[in-house]
């Protein structure tokens, strides 16, 4: 039988979709990083801006070129590459040579993200893996020189260097005087505001917290990961501080280093964190535990990035054992 009418479009249900998209999600995360970005330019000057721009531009360009060369659909407009570049810049020192963030971004996007299948398929957080690559390849650039906030000029950084608050104690040979000055209200205030040496976007706990809470409120990230991560670091350091193992207070530890940026912006990366709610608790608590282990007994003063990278690799295992119980299932048959 001939169908003479004009045919209508048929698709499977549902016929309406929410307005939420990957692009919107990435954009909101980038917006949440704006306070920390402004802070970074305030503290570390034009150089912070330059490194951030180079990092973002090379991340986006790498993705674009790779996808063009491989004749894949170009997905740079989803914002995920830009976000990776931004986060990578935020976790490297403002004193690094300008080619370093570019190399890091290429590694993050090309090796960690695209070679595994692009957005959604990377098993490590690309920005953190990029940082780990730079740390392994150019440790001198990555850890030796930290800028004193509000001191930088484009050329004059070589002479003005400092240590990060977390590194100071180790460098001083665990001096009690140094520890008590680090624990002082004045020092904690600097940590909160970000007026300390450190990576470009990680120093201001307050500005990161503002962005992080914005992400929780907008439903972009699950509060379980930052809460369990920061919470477990805090609780463990209460124990370590009271028993005299740690000379630094728990408050110092949650404000210092990369914990805030790590807990709100790295550990919550949906691609590399557990998708189950129970799994997110486990992920956060274990990352906190690892961070404390590395900070307290490891070779590095800071352990956030490695703890998250290690936990990234446990995600499939965690998910396997935290599957939700389907509605109506009495006991697991598997």
């Amino acid at each position: 039988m001939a169908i003479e009418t004009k045919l209508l479009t048929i698709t499977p249900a549902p016929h309406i979709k929410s307005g939420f998209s990957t692009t919107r999600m990435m954009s909101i995360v980038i917006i949440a990083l704006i306070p920390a970005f402004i802070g970074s330019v305030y503290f570390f000057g034009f150089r912070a801006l330059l490194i951030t721009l180079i990092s973002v531009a090379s991340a986006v360009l790498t993705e674009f070129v790779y996808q063009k060369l491989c004749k894949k659909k170009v997905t740079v407009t989803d914002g995920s590459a830009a976000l990776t570049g931004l986060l990578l810049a935020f976790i490297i020192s403002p004193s690094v040579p300008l080619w370093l963030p570019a190399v890091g971004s290429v590694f993050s996007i090309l090796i960690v993200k695209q070679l595994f299948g692009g957005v959604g398929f990377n098993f490590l957080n690309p920005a953190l893996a990029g940082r780990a690559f730079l740390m392994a390849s150019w440790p001198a650039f990555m850890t030796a020189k930290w800028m004193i906030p509000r001191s930088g000029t484009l050329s004059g950084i070589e002479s003005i260097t400092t240590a990060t608050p977390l590194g100071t104690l180790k460098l001083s040979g665990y001096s009690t005087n140094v520890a008590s000055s680090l624990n002082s209200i004045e020092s904690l205030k600097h940590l909160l505001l970000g007026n300390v040496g450190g990576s470009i976007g990680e120093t201001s706990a307050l500005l990161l917290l503002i962005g992080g809470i914005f992400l929780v409120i907008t439903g972009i990230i699950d509060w379980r990961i930052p809460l369990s991560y920061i919470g477990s670091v805090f609780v463990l350091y209460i124990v370590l501080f009271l028993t005299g193992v740690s000379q630094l207070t728990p408050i110092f530890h949650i404000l210092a280093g990369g914990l805030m940026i790590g807990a709100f912006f790295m550990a919550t990366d949906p691609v590399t964190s557990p998708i189950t709610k129970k799994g997110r608790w486990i992920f956060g608590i274990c990352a906190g535990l690892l961070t404390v282990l590395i900070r307290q007994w490891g070779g590095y003063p800071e352990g956030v990035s490695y703890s998250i990278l290690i936990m990234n690799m446990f995600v499939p295992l965690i998910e396997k054992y935290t599957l939700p119980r389907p509605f109506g299932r009495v006991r697991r048959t598997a």
Partner: protein
Amino acid sequence: MPKFFTFKGGIHPGEFKFTEKDAIEDFVAPDVVYIPLSQHFGKPAKPVVKKGDKVYVGSLIGEPDGGFSASIHSSVSGTVKKVDKYHHFSGNMEQTVIIENDGQMEKDPAIKSAYSDSITPEKIIEIARNYGIVGLGGATFPASIKMSPPPGKTFDTLILNGAECEPYLTSDHRLMIESPEEIILGALLIKKAINANRLIIAIEENKMDAVSVYEKIKDKYKFDIAILKTKYPQGGEKQIIKAILDREVPEGGLPVDVHAYVQNVGTAYALWDAVYNGMPLVKRIVSITGSVKNRKNLKVAIGTPISALIEHCGGYMGEAGKLISGGPMMGIALYTDKIPVTKGTSGVLIQRKEEMSLDEPTNCIRCGRCISSCPMDLMPNLLGDFSEFYKFEESKDLGVLNCIECGSCSYVCPAKKHLVQLIKVTKAELKKKR
């Protein structure tokens, strides 16, 4: 402040209940009606008429083919033109009885009330079967089968489902407001048939005008009202039982396993009509909504082509892109407006070309929204992956067969993946193997 019942998961899309204030209008049956023999869950009915036969409103034209089927009746009086394949909502051409309407709307002489105060449960179930009563919420499950539980299983509560959680649709809402006593009388028949001791009418909080109608008669007929939170899929059978009775239908089980029986308000009305007036199910309320000039709630003879309804509503607004039978979440997109209204057509939603959501799926970013939205606590992301890689067996342990196909996962997905469709593929593949 009344307590609002709800369940875990689900979504809250825009409601768009444009026609909730529009009284139901009788739509005059067109010159020709196309009544498919397959309008219900189960085997198509067997035709009992042939070309040239004279039929009346309510005359049997298709009898149930075996136990799992339903009877079909003529919705007009006139002459059978032919029994042939015709456009069908399923997308296939299906056996259809095409009747030329003589416009007299003469009732079948055999039609008379079967009601008496001493009507037995068996008689009610028999009427439901003979008069073609099926679930009008959309699933079109034959009511007589539902009312006859397997031996040893019993019901204690009848939930009358007036949730109407699908956006846009207002047919149940209007029926609840305009025919409250009929609905309750029909429900009391079901209650009697299944020997339940409690009747609860469940209505979402966005229909408080309907709630107030039932408040007035609840003491007279002795039933309870449960106000549900406005959330999709609140009207899902398992969700509504969980929300109101806090009972969880076991995996692979039926509501009878937790002694609950859920039936749509429209079905109760149809049963009332069948028992009190002797009229088989030949008409239903259809919301014509979306991009149509005048949106309406119409009482339509089964077999009326949708094109006639749209013409009656002033035609399409703009260029029609999609014609959806049912609501936007679970409705079926139709390829032509020649397709007739059937027992399950709760609404017709028209989307203009520019309103259609045709986003290309991108990679899953594992945000977990599908999991939070799943009312059955499944992992739609994983089930979707398994389906894409043809690993159907692996989905079984994850409970894929529990999926109620509500589409919440597809709705929330930021990567616009066709999750529920992928899951449907897995379910179909697993069914094939059994």
